[in-house]
């Protein structure tokens, strides 16, 4: 289990659900332009709603990949599937 900023990554045996994104950005910010991204692998996501924690998955290939963000230290991730949970407050609001 790893936390980068307001995102928590939990290794899981579950297959990713939703649709695969075309890029490797897990979550970006419309205010700062900063992004949580992986350097290799896939990002999958369901359609998040305002009240729910977003359902993201990252699939890291053999050899691993890094989880990067301009303001946070890099976290190395080993091969596997990770469920990504976004930090929330009451009423489902999240922070940037």
């Amino acid at each position, binding site marked *: *289990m*790893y*936390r*980068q*900023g307001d995102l*928590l990554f939990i290794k899981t045996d579950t297959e990713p659900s939703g*649709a*695969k*994104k*075309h*890029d490797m*950005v897990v*979550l*970006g*910010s*419309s*205010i*700062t*332009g900063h*992004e949580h991204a992986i350097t290799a692998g896939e990002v999958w*996501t369901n*359609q*998040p*709603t*305002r009240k729910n*924690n977003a359902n993201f998955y990252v699939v890291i290939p053999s050899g691993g990949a890094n989880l990067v963000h301009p*303001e*946070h*230290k*890099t*976290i190395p991730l080993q091969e596997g599937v990770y469920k990504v*949970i976004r*930090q*929330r*407050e*009451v*009423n489902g*609001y*999240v*922070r*940037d």
Partner: protein
Amino acid sequence: MLEIKQLVENRHKIPDEFWLDEVFWFYETHSDGLEIKVSCYDWDAERIGLTKDGNIVWAFDSGCSCTGEWADFDLQKCPTKSHKEFILSDFMKERDQYSEITTTEDDILKSINNALLLVREDVEPKEVLSSENAEIRRYLIKRIGYEKIKADVGAKVLHTDGTSELLRFKTGEMYVKVKDSSTDREYLLFVKGNHETCKSAIAWTFGLREHEYNPIIET
């Protein structure tokens, strides 16, 4: 629209960190602005912003998540209106031509009032806590002072864990103060439940129970 005018006239007071490429996006669909970001999940995702030269801009996402095809969040700026011409109801009608928008004028007004907290000099501590935007709250806590806010709202510290604090306010609400180890920013997060420890409250923010929350690396 008085609130928009106030925001425009005081835009120079909006902190640099809230500007992105010369635009302050104070509203975004499926969020209260400044929160859920760059989303290509909804084809009608949109934003309303204020430019540094005082114009209102609007952008919407051209992606199409309904077919499973993900597109870049391309900003398509529609003709802007200066604050003097900006009439919210007219804006809503114009915007409705482009997509099926589900948001209301009240949603937008709420976001504007939230954004005004950044430029007002008379923000009360209780207003800081009522802000539904954690980044605005974070900025105002730094500006006003965390200890001052705690004293003003009669917060009781229930638990301390390193740089985290679990607070209960006189109103009964519970917050947990956390410090981002990478950015040194302090956030006051509104949590639900009857927590006894900071870890329990932080775990809740990730939808977990205290014993389930054990990150081996935190940055």
